[in-house]
């Protein structure tokens, strides 16, 4: 059987790897972006000079041959689902028995005047990075439209080359539709500390043409202020990259509709990663989750299903992480910017304003619901176990050291956290465990 995968991002490559682990099928991965799989999340580090492009490739070139995964660098122009055939830009046709669509996203554009000028782009693909690199020499200022993870990454990239940056966000505080208020405020302060000109509560009016089809300034909608700049980054989110599949009979809403086996409405066709829209997502989960980890899980699940072993997609307990300039962020479970009524929260922030721990729990029975950590590292497996087992909040607090994953010699803040909790609630909790690995492993096995 011939399995064809369109897209060589984390989803497509995970699907290919797992298919190979589970079967002897012929596997072809098609991408027009790059020859080899690279880590999209590492694009920023190439620009910043932390890594070379080649360093972002998780597998050496021989890996693909060794695992008999054929790589095709070409662009799929059209998919003929009836005849199970792909028409390529090069004119070739590739047929398949089963097809996995791992098409990824494209940067959102909301119809702003000037959005298609030169030097206006998002940051999603290798081509976006090359474009950014090509226009960076002599750049006097860059304007980034939209906050979020990519926006702040782009700002960090420009700052690594001492290029002044302005960020325009609609919100009153950075990423406050995802981060709770205090964390959002912390990152907002941190952005200012890095000499990034963050403008809150503003929208992009238009991008000004310099007369040669190149962006030379942006105008803020609310104030009419004109900001001269040589590059405009559009980072107001991403959406599934599915335009070329419209009118093929494939069921598409915002993304490609899939059931919980990641099957589309076309027989033998699966969709995974950023481009997939789960018809009936798990409670509390969004239908499209354009993040690395879910892409990786979907790739694995799709491979099972392709190989005839039916497995339903269950992303498990939500987790994610990011790094905002110098502040690392991890989240486990449900930590919402606008929590429902039964969510209560206990938040501790270090006096230096760059570290924080938030525990979210159920008001009714005080079971733990989520963790948000800023500037501190927590253990994934420990948090997950607490969440899975619906552990009581105070039990979690007493054992909090088990979750500490900061490097050795770092000051531990669990005691401060407990003190703050006791002070606020009148409880008399004490830390019961130490951050010893052996204890952690015993806890995980228990």
């Amino acid at each position: 059987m011939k399995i064809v995968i369109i897209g060589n991002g984390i989803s497509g490559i995970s699907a290919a790897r797992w298919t190979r682990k589970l079967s002897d099928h012929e596997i072809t991965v098609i991408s027009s972006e790059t020859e080899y799989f690279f880590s999209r999340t590492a694009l920023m580090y190439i620009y910043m000079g932390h890594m070379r492009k080649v360093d972002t490739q998780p597998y050496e070139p021989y890996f693909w041959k060794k695992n008999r995964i054929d790589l095709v660098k070409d662009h799929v122009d059209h998919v003929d689902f009836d005849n199970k055939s792909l028409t390529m830009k090069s004119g070739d046709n590739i047929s398949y028995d089963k097809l996995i669509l791992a098409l990824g996203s494209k940067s959102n554009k909301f119809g702003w005047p000037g959005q298609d000028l030169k030097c206006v782009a998002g940051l999603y693909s290798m081509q976006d990075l090359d474009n950014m690199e090509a226009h960076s020499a002599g750049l006097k200022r860059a304007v980034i439209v939209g906050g979020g993870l990519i926006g702040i990454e782009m700002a960090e990239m420009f700052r690594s080359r001492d290029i002044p940056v302005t960020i325009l966000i609609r919100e009153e505080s950075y990423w406050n539709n995802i981060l709770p208020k205090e964390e959002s405020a912390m990152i907002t302060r941190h952005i200012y500390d890095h000499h990034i000109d963050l403008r809150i509560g503003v929208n992009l009016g238009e991008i000004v043409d310099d007369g040669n089809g190149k962006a030379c300034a942006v105008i803020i909608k609310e104030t009419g202020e004109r900001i001269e700049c040589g590059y405009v980054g559009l980072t107001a989110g991403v959406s599934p990259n599915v335009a070329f599949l419209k009118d093929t009979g494939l069921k598409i809403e915002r993304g490609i509709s899939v059931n919980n086996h990641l099957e589309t409405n076309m027989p033998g066709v699966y969709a995974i990663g950023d481009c997939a829209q789960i018809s009936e997502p798990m409670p509390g989960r969004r239908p499209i989750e354009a993040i690395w980890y879910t892409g990786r899980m979907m790739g694995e699940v799709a491979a099972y299903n392709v190989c005839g072993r039916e497995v339903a997609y269950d992303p498990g307990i939500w987790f994610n992480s990011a790094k905002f300039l110098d502040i690392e962020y991890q989240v486990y479970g449900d930590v919402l910017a606008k929590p429902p009524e039964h969510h209560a929260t206990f938040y501790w922030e270090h006096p230096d304003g760059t570290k924080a721990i938030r525990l979210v729990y159920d008001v009714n029975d005080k079971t733990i619901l989520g963790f948000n950590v800023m500037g501190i590292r927590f253990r994934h497996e420990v948090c997950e176990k607490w969440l899975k087992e619906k552990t009581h909040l105070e039990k979690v607090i007493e054992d909090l050291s088990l979750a500490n994953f900061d490097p050795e010699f770092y000051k531990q803040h669990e005691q401060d956290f407990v003190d703050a909790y006791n002070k606020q609630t009148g409880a008399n909790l004490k830390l019961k465990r130490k951050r010893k690995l052996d204890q952690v492993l015993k806890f995980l096995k228990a």
Partner: protein
Amino acid sequence: MNNIQKIGIGLFLLSLIIFTAVLGLNSYTLSSDGLSHITNDVHRNAIIEEAEKTGALDKKYSNNIAFIGDFKSILNNTQASLESSYKSNPPADVSEWDYKMGDWVMKDYTINTLKATGDGPVSNNPLLFLFLTFGLGIIGGLLFILPKFRALPGIKNDNIYHSALTRGLTFTPRVGILMATIIGVLIYGFKYMNGAIFWPLVTAIVAGLITLLVFLHEKKKETGPPRSASVPITGWIGFFAGFYLIGFYILLYWMPEYITNWTTIVDPVSHMLSGNDASQWFLYGLMYTVIVIVMGIRMMSKYRHNKYQRVRTASVMFFQTCIAFLLPEILTRLNYPYYDFKNIWPLNYTFFFDWNINNLIESGGLGIFMLVWGIALIVLGVPIITYFYGKRWYCSWVCGCGGLAETMGDPFRQLSDKSIRAWKYERYIIHGVLVFAVIMTAMVLYHFFTGSTRVLFLDSNNIRQWYGFLIGSAFAGVIGTGFYPLMGNRTWCRFGCPLAGYLGLVQKFKSRFRITTNGGQCISCGNCSTHCEMGIDVRHYAQRGQDIVRSSCVGCGVCAAVCPRGVLRLENGSTDIGERAEEVRNVHIEDLINAK
């Protein structure tokens, strides 16, 4: 870079230029006064006679190269004439060994004569030149480094791959330079072994065999070229920095007579510490220590937010300054043996040499303690401490080579090759060196206890001379440090150090140390692998959710520091190490390993 930093760089470069120029700034007049340091009357008079005959006596040389050329031929002629006159007319009052002039004393005579006869700005103002070289270098370095403390704390790797100093070379020139260096070492080694081809030939054959093994193995698995091969980048400043370092080591190890002016400028420091004139080894020790301190401060500024890095850096600075540099000098002053308490065999390959053992035994209680301490470190210290903490306790906390790699070498850590091919080379070579060190030491000890130099067809003096040349000097120094800007800062530690090999075996098979991977948080970005100085593809394990147990890991902690998602942590624990390191853990569907 602000103006103060620019001035700092300028001062540092100036000090480097002056340091280099110092070598040519003296003139030399061979006078009988200048030979008075030779206490052997027979030798001194014979040399003066020979010098008179050739017209070199009281002749002024404007540079050391011409002087050394003439003086060496005078010594050679003197040696020959003493030899023949001893044969024809053996003197009654002088023993044969006092009468004849051996090769070894000739080297000492050359160096001491250069120091005694040197005249010029350097010899007349050593303190001034000490300031203009070491002083300006330190001031320049600190002016460049200290302003970095004002930056916001956080990872500071911006633009390292844009810098012509730190971005490395492409595969082909890098391999070219390495091959040229190896061939050069072998050819010079032939000369070093007085024209005996045996050991250089054996070395060449072993190198060929290793290459064959690596490539044969690759072909079977259809592996391709290493990943670091394909990117066209050229760091020309790095190239010159490497070139300078390689040159420095060649002079230091094999042509010390050409760098007597450098030892002259550090004489005042040596007089203060041990009371003796500075040898090239004192010069090297002082430079080494100064570099570890200044670049250690840089490391502190870079990892201001990371206490593990700060403590670790302070530790290597302490051990280099106090234990490796000051303490042995003070011991010498007190007439005790020169001894570095933290240097462990087989890195300290001369530990079991007869002269060292005899020296220690003859030095009373302290000497015996040193001998016992040294052996205890080998048989107890290494296995026990490594069991609890991994080899990092030594390699990135105590060791001098590690100290230099973690301070001066830090800007080059990303240049280590992460390919599987490099890993294969690493395993063959480092364990090969370990075996070589063991065989060499066994023979030396056999010689010590039985008095016989021969085992089968091998000669213990020969093998130890070759080990000292090939491993002790060429590998550890010329390639080990000279290749910092070309192949990364741990080239010696990773491929060559026999002690690292020994520690690594303990770490791999019997240690609580591992790097824990944090569940499924890895995003495969590759920062950990890129910045691993030992060339470990950390990401390979992290993205599978596996804990990392690798013999080569020196536990520097930089992978954990640069990880943007908090995925890695260096830990010690006795539980489950095998299980967590072996299994593919980051799987979403649980039963998968048995799935097929």
